[in-house]
């Protein structure tokens, strides 16, 4: 087991290093080293390293880690291996919140409303993640309420409710985007596919505390989260406040998903796929699972981003296309495995 953890840590260290080497411009290792120590030979190289490659690798790692941790948490608290932020409607909810923030704070409609004093004076960079978080919380609440009232509360039914809510909120957010800008196709594609192309370093400074805080909280409550794997009745007999733990975990999933979706769009299937891989490697208990998801999820996203950047010579593939392609096959295999 120690060998496996050593490999995962090595992978998590090496993948960002490899990620920094890849890109449209040719930066030799020596030049990269000089940039790390603050002695880039040209201004352009400095810009490429500090403004493009480093932010992309850091944000990519945080996005992968965050989505994987959110997926693992959702799967454990619902005892459903097919749960993930995308299929649970959390991504769409965060997308809707972000779309509303875009409409109100970053469009002509928003400007008009601001002039008439109908909107608070909040910068778009703050309104965006907050709105995404509120959207994610809204989606989680809606799915839970629907699953409990109309779908009988069973795991599979919660998933069906999640898929329905996901489509509903996606449709609404795309409509809002077109309302704000008739030529919003690019924005819609961004929300649908997700992208790390427009990443800036300050994204990482917003994501880092959210991801780290969430991971620490989940590790702290790891043993109590494990008890939920035994079923609610059994967990209660062990003195666990099941409702409070589940609500806390759902809020963490909403926060993680929101801060990722707000800046990088909806990147699908990472939250579904990575926890399954991690369980096979390091086990099913929450603490091992969460740590494994941070290491493998982060590394996976950085490596997929390398493919997204370098698979086609003249353009970049939105990262969500690749994760969805891999994830959809994985999803089918997971369903097949459940049936056998």
């Amino acid at each position: 087991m120690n060998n496996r953890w050593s490999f995962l840590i090595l992978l998590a260290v090496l993948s960002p290093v490899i990620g920094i080497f890849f890109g449209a411009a040719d930066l030799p290792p020596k030049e990269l080293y000089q940039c790390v120590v603050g002695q880039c030979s040209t201004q352009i190289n400095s810009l490429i390293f500090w403004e493009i490659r480093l932010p992309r690798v850091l944000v990519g790692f945080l996005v992968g880690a965050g989505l994987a941790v959110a997926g693992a948490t959702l799967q454990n608290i619902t005892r459903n291996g097919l749960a993930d932020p995308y299929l649970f409607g959390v991504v769409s909810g965060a997308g809707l919140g972000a779309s509303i923030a875009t409409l109100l704070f970053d469009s002509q409609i928003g400007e008009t409303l601001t002039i008439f004093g109908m909107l608070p004076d909040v910068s778009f960079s703050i309104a965006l993640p907050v709105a995404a978080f509120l959207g994610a919380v809204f989606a989680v609440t809606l799915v839970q309420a629907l699953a409990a009232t109309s779908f009988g509360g069973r795991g599979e039914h919660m998933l069906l409710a999640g898929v329905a809510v996901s489509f509903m909120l996606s449709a609404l957010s795309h409509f809002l985007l077109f309302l704000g800008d008739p030529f919003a196709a690019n924005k819609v594609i961004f929300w649908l596919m997700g992208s790390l192309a427009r990443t800036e370093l300050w994204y990482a400074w917003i994501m880092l505390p959210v991801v780290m805080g969430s991971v620490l909280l989940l590790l702290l409550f790891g043993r109590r989260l494990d008890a939920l794997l035994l079923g609610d009745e059994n967990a209660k007999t062990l003195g666990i406040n099941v409702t409070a733990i589940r609500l806390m975990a759902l809020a963490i999933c909403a926060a993680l998903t929101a801060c990722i979706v707000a800046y990088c769009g909806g990147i699908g299937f990472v939250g579904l796929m990575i926890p399954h891989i991690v369980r096979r490697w390091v086990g099913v208990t929450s603490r091992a699972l969460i740590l494994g998801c941070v290491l493998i999820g982060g590394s996976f996203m950085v490596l997929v981003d390398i493919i997204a950047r370098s698979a086609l010579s003249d353009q970049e593939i939105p990262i969500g296309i690749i994760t969805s392609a891999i994830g959809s096959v994985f999803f089918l295999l997971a369903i097949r495995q459940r049936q056998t």
Partner: protein
Amino acid sequence: MPESASLQAKQLSYEIAQKHILSDINLSLERGKVLGVLGPNGAGKTSLLKMLSGQTASKQQVEWCGKALEDFSPLERAKQIAVVNQLNESVFALSLQQIVRMGWLPHKTLLSRENEQDHAHLAASIAKVGLSDKTHQTFSSLSGGEQQRGLIARALVQKAALIVLDEPVNHLDIYYQHQVLKLLRTLAHQQQMTVVMSLHDINLAASYCDHLCLLNEGKMIAQGPVEKVLEAKTLEHVFNIPCRIRRDDLTQNLRVDFYPPDEQEHPFMPEVMQYPTTTDSDQGHSS
């Protein structure tokens, strides 16, 4: 009610949607005793167990060691009372050890670490139920009897003084039924644990329980030592089926023999049973 009773229920009542599930149940049990809860389907056995273990609120009607269950916090209660339910919701492949170590939960704060003593206690608990060689095996791959013993090991790790089990030998074959019940009786008599369990098999209850209580339609029909509760007339009334009570020659335990209603005229004469005879038409088909 004896003063030494650890578990006491006073005028316990429970209703759902104005339907009485339990009415006016009084019960007491001393520490280190095994209580079997008997009764037909729908008698209120599970509801009674849930109230005795604090899973269902009981408004000061149940006391454990002189303190109302309502006054225990969920964690305090979990330190005192372990509940063994069937585990059929385990989706991910938890090992036996991972499930047993969850018994630590009531005793650990968020930051406390597991020490050598904890690990020794964990290993000893698994050994006590005879599953040391299956410690790292996936829980779902264990047999029903092994799973049940694993959950009892979790109760031992939980260091609970009262174990409540809802039909612990359901779906187990005869060997494991006796093994699990023997283990529970040993724990009660040797470690002063109090055991309360519901059972369908009255003869198993007679063999392994110190006290019995008989429920019917939410009411307590009889309670006390096995000899007092197992009366043919009472059992016939509750289960609506004729029976005879005798003492087993070998074990000296009481045994109850029930007879199907349509055979009550000749309960001990299987030779009078009518077997289907071969008819001419059947012979025609077979040729």
